[in-house]
């Protein structure tokens, strides 16, 4: 296979994911409404609680909504990209996967295209939420949004690779509920999206630093409102490491996938 053929496969699989994205407005709406509900009800609720003098100091010097919204954006990137990775199970069920498995392109190429496409749609959704949440955030720069979305894209690559890796090992949706409760929820709660990591007990803090989502939340918060617990360069390093590791694992598992 020529390098050109590789690129073609990557391109066309990304194209496919984007086509699916624009064809399902209900999915787009759901992926935007859900974070908005968090911001509106959860966020507004706590924001009015944290209005006492000195409350801002708890959140690194910003009000609670400014603290929360970047976290919600990172959370939506995470769930969006992770679930679209898992959705490869649909392809298995509806049979399209066979078309890919029998194609003369390396599976990794097809998978990479899929990941890049899914990450782009997750980032677009994040961008929409950012724009809607903008009026509620203090201090934000245009460049900051761009950087935040760039970091979001990097995070999405790792998370959709994680989804694909898990889906490659699953036969059906049976294990899905399990993954929801043992993976998605803990990763979100540990990430510092809702509350600062700084005040967690040491063991929780330890887990939080092992949670890749933590670095994505931290970076998004840094670029949107200028508050960070971790150096953004470290965030970048962690996300790149996550991407490399998970893409390799996903490539390996997806490559081994067969019809049996």
């Amino acid at each position, binding site marked *: 296979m020529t390098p050109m053929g590789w690129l073609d496969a990557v391109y066309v699989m990304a194209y*496919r994911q984007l086509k699916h994205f624009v064809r399902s407005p209900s999915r787009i709406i759901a992926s935007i409404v859900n974070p908005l509900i968090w911001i509106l009800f959860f966020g507004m609720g706590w924001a009015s609680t944290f209005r006492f003098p000195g409350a801002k100091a708890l959140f690194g010097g910003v009000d609670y909504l400014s603290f929360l919204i970047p976290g919600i954006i990172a959370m939506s990137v995470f769930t969006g990209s992770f679930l679209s990775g898992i959705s490869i199970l649909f392809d298995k069920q*509806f049979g399209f996967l066979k078309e890919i498995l029998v194609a003369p392109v390396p599976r990794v190429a097809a998978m990479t295209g899929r990941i890049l496409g899914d990450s782009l749609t997750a980032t677009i959704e994040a961008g929409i939420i950012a724009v809607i949440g903008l009026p509620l955030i203090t201090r934000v720069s245009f460049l900051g949004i761009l950087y935040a979305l760039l970091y979001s894209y990097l995070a999405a690559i790792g998370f959709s690779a994680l989804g694909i890796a898990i889906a490659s090992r699953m036969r059906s949706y049976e294990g899905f509920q399990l993954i929801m409760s043992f993976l998605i929820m803990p990763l979100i709660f540990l990430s510092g999206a809702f509350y600062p990591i700084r005040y967690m007990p040491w063991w929780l803090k330890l887990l939080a630093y092992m949670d890749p989502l933590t670095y994505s939340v931290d970076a998004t918060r840094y670029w949107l409102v200028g508050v960070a617990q971790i150096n953004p360069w470290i965030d970048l390093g962690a996300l790149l490491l996550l991407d490399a590791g998970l893409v390799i694992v996903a490539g390996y598992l997806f490559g081994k996938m067969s*019809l049996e």
Partner: protein
Amino acid sequence: MKRYGDIVAVNGVSFRVKYGEIFGFLGPNGAGKTTTIHILSTLLKPTAGRALVAGYDVVREAASVRRSIGIVFQDPSLDEGLTAYENLYIHGRVYGLRGSALRERIEEMLGFVELEEYRDRLVRTFSGGMRRRLELARALLHEPRVLFLDEPTLGLDPHARTRLWEYITRLRAEKGVTIFLTTHYMEEAEQLCDRIAIIDKGRIVATGSPDELKSMLGDEVVYMRVSDPGKACKALERLESVKECKVLQGGRVSIHVPSAAQTIPELLEAAKNSGVRVVEVSYRRPTLNDVFIHLTGRGIEEESVDETERIRIYARSYFRRKG
């Protein structure tokens, strides 16, 4: 040979398909047809044994095999959320086609299966027959040398079935593609295939052209209504190609011959010479079903076939609704 755990799906399956030929695998449900196709198309690794497709080994040269083949799977494999055109476009790009060459090729294939008008409709809205045709178009898009069709007409109505048969025969005539197809319809195997392998419980029990297979059973029987049955039989039995002649009721005789098609002119000639007037001629050839019964002691039971087929069709429409 292919084993799933303890289940031996196919074993002792050995055959050659000639270039440009339509070769059929005929067998009942669970015979191992799909397993064989999946091994030949590199989707499954054989537990033991060796297979070459288009000159390449399916295990060691899987990439070359994949480039040389096109396949229509037994179960649906289209992307239902995309249009017909997009399905073909994605396939083309994955197989290295691009630009105007790809566009022209897509148009040509849409034309071939007569789906031009539906090019921009979502596959989700397609009927079973339309989907099948689109799958055929997709399998042919990159001009494969070998085409695999796994029960291409399963679940289609007679009209759609004949239409698909037409495409397949035209393909062979116009493009010289080598076609390997599986079916459990006798009629389909007989209509389409140059040669057939009958497969049962993972084994090939016989291989040959439909006529060869049927002549395994020996006689064909010619029935004639004549003016004088007794006299006719006496005259006909003197012919070398006639094994037996029996007088039946109603002025009819039955004549056992090795090949009715070849012997009938001779029979008519002999009858005429002996002054017997022939009113009516008919003959019954043994069907492939007779051959199957002869080889395995069972028929390809149509009833059980219909049952699984119904379930399958149901499963398809179920997934379609969910999708």
